[in-house]
C-alpha cells in the first residue's frame, strides 16, 4: 500500500569485492519510478559491477538492494543461500538487462529469442508470446525481422532486438551495460532513440554509458562514480555545467 510513496529502487551501503580488491564500497541511492539515470565514470570505477549487482548477476557482499519492494540483504545470502537465490530470481523478473555484447541467442531467430524466456519462465502460450514479440519488434523498428537469425543483423539491430527481448518479460526497470559501446557510430543513435521512446512511456532505466551527450540530454539525473564510490549524484545540467567535485570536473573535461 505504501509502495507508491517509496522509491522504486533503493540501494544502501552496497559493497562488493573480488578477493582483496574492493570494487564497490558503500553505494547508496534511490531511484523513483519513471526516472532515466545515467551512470558515468572512468573505466574500472565499478559502474558495470553496480549494474550487475542490481540484477543479482553478482552477489553483494554487504548492504541491501530493494526493487519494487523485493528486498535483498547481503546478510540473507550468508544465512540462507537457497532462500536468497529464490528471492534473487523473483527480483530479476522485475529487471531487464541489456549487455554491451548483445548476447542474443545465436541458435534462435529474433522471435525465438524473444519468446523463449516467456514460454520457459512464465509458461506463456506460444501464440501469446509471439504476439507480444511481434509487438515489441515493431516497437523497436524491427517488425520485418522476426524470422531472421542474429548473425544476419547489424550491431544496432541486434541491440534493439536485445532490448525487445528484455522488455518481453515486462520488467519494471531496465538496466543497460554500455549498450552502445560496441556499435558503429552511425548505429548508436537508433539504439538511443529506442531508450528515449521507452523513457517517454514511463519506463525506469539505468544506463551505464560513455555517451555524454545522451546522458546530458536524456537523463533525469546522473551518477558519477570513481574508485567504487559515488562521487556525485546530480541534475544533468548541474553536473555538466557546474560539477561539484574536482574529480568529476577532471573526468568531464576529457569528454566534453
Amino acid at each position, binding site marked *: 500500500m505504501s509502495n507508491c510513496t517509496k522509491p522504486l529502487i533503493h540501494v544502501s551501503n552496497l559493497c562488493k569485492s573480488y578477493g582483496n580488491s574492493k570494487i564497490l564500497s558503500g553505494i547508496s541511492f534511490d531511484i523513483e519510478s519513471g526516472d532515466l539515470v545515467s551512470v558515468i565514470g572512468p573505466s574500472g570505477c565499478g559502474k558495470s559491477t553496480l549494474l550487475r549487482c542490481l540484477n543479482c*548477476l553478482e552477489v553483494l557482499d554487504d548492504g541491501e538492494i530493494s526493487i519494487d519492494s523485493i528486498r535483498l540483504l547481503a546478510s540473507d545470502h550468508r544465512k540462507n543461500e537457497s532462500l536468497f537465490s529464490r528471492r534473487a530470481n523473483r527480483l*530479476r523478473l522485475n529487471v*531487464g538487462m541489456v549487455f554491451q555484447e548483445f548476447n542474443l*541467442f545465436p*541458435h534462435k531467430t529474433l522471435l525465438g529469442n524473444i519468446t523463449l*524466456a516467456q514460454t520457459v519462465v512464465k509458461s506463456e502460450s506460444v501464440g501469446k508470446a509471439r504476439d507480444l514479440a511481434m509487438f515489441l519488434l515493431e516497437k523497436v523498428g524491427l517488425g520485418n525481422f522476426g524470422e531472421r537469425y542474429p548473425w544476419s543483423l547489424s550491431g544496432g539491430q541486434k541491440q534493439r532486438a*536485445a532490448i525487445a527481448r*528484455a522488455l518481453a518479460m515486462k520488467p519494471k526497470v531496465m538496466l543497460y551495460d554500455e549498450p552502445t559501446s560496441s556499435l558503429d557510430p552511425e548505429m548508436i543513435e537508433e539504439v538511443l532513440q529506442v531508450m528515449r521512446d521507452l523513457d517517454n512511456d514511463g519506463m525506469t532505466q539505468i544506463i551505464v554509458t560513455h555517451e555524454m551527450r545522451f546522458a546530458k540530454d536524456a537523463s533525469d539525473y546522473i551518477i558519477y562514480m570513481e574508485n567504487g564510490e559515488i562521487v556525485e549524484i546530480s541534475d544533468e545540467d548541474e553536473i555538466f555545467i557546474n560539477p561539484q567535485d574536482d574529480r568529476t570536473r577532471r573526468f568531464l573535461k576529457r569528454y566534453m
Partner: protein
Amino acid sequence: MRALFALLFLLASVSASAEDRVLKWAADPGSGAPNVFYADGDLSKLCGFEKDIIEKIANIIGRGAVFCQNDWEVLIPGLRVGLYDVAINGIVPDDTLSSAVIFSDPYYACSLSLIVREQNDRIQSVLDCNGATVGVLQNAKSEAILVGSIKKINVISYPSEYCVLEDLRNGRVDAALLDGQIAAYYVANSSDLRIVDSVGEVKYSIAAAPENIALMCEIDRAIAAMKMDGSLDAIVAKWHLDNDSYRKLAANVRSIRPEISKNFQEKFSKDVKLHGGYLKMLPFFAKAATVTLSLSIFGMSVAIIFGLGLAMVRVFTPRWISGIAILIIEFLRGTPLLIQMFFVFYGLPYIGIRLSPMCAGILTLGINYSSYEAENFRAGMAAVPHGQMEAARALGMNQWQALRHVILPQAFAFILPPLTNDFIALLKDSSLVSLITIVELTRTYTMIASNSMDFFGTGAIVALVYFLIGLPFVCLARLAEKYLRLEKRAYFARKSLK
C-alpha cells in the same frame, strides 16, 4: 648387389637349417589346465600333459621343442601361415579342419563330461538339458553333440573353460559340457561343482600344415613308439588322466598314416578352394552386423546420457561432488575397456549383479565412452560464451532452464564432430564383446575364417561391413553439423543470397 644377395641367401639357409633341428609347437596356455597351462599363475612355469607329450616326441625325433604361444581359436590358421610346425592343444580333427591341415594319430581320448552346480538336482544327464542353457568351449565338438541330440537347448560358447565354469557358478548357464580331463581337473579343485554325466568321445591329435607331411610321419612313429614303451601311459598317469577311452586308444598302436597321406597328396595337389563361397556367409554377417549396430547405438546412447550427467556434475556442483565426477571420468578413461568388460561380466556376479551378455556389453561400452563424452560436453559448454548464460539468467531463467534451452543446444553444435568420432570408435570397440560370448561381427569373422581358412576374403568382407554400417551415421552427422553450425549456416545463407 650380388654380394648382398649371396649374404642374404647364406643367412636364410643358416636360419633354415637351424630351424630344422627344432620342433616349434604351439598351444594356448590361456585355454587352461591340464592340457597346457602356467602353474600357479607363474608365467615362467609352463606345464601340462600335452607339453610333456610333445617334448617327449621332440626328444624321440631328435629335435629341440620350442614353445610358441597363440590363441586357441587361431591355432590352426597359425599353422597355415607357418608360425610354427605343429599345434597340440586338445585339437579334435573334423571334416572342415581336415581340409586345411593334417593330423597325427590320436595321442589321447576321453569322453565329454557334463558339469552342474552342486545344488542342482534337476540335470542328471545330458538329456535333462532340454530347455537349459549349456556352456561349451568355442569351436569345440560339444556344441555339435548338444545341438544334434537335444531339441530345445541354448548353447553359449566361451573363449576358455575358466569363463564357462565362472558363468556356471554364477548361474548364467545351467550346465557345462567340457572335455573329460578338463572337467575332472577343475571339479576336483572346486567344491561347488560336480560331474553328473559323460557322453561321446573325443580324440586329440597333433595338427600340422599339409607340407609338413614328412614331419607328421615321424611324429606318428614317435607316438606309436610311446604307446609301445609305456612312456605315454606314464605321462597320462602322472596327470591322473587315465580313462577307458584312452586305454582303448593306447592299446591300438597301428598307424593309419599311409592311407591318409595319399589322401592328402591328392587333395592339396589340386589347390582346392577352401571357402564355400562368400554368398553363403552373407546371412551370418548380416545377423552379426545387426548385433554390432544395436550394441553401438545403445552403447552410445548410454554414453551420451551418462556423459552429459557427469559433465553437469563436474561443472555445476560444489567442489567435493565435482571432484568425485572427475575421479570417475579419469578412472573410466584411464583403465582398459577390456578389463572393464571382464569386470562387469565376470566380476560383478561376485557381488550378486548378474547381467546378460548384451546388457553387460552395452553398459560397459556406454559407461566407458561416457567419460569421453563428459569431456566433450564440458568442452562444448565451455565454448559457449559466458554472456549467453548471463543473458538467460537475466531473463529470469534458472540455471537448469538456461542450460536446457540456451547453453546445451549451442554446445551440441560444437561437440557433434567429436561425438561422431567417438561413435565410430565405439562401433569398432564393440568387437571386444566377442570375449563375453556375444556373437557379433568380429566373432563371426574369426569363427567363419578359422573354419574356412580364409582370413583374407572374409576379412575384407567384414571390414567392408564395419565401414558400411558406420557410414550412414557419418553422413547424418555431417548434415546435422551443416544445419547446427551457426557460422556455417551464416555462410551458406549468404552464399544463397547472392
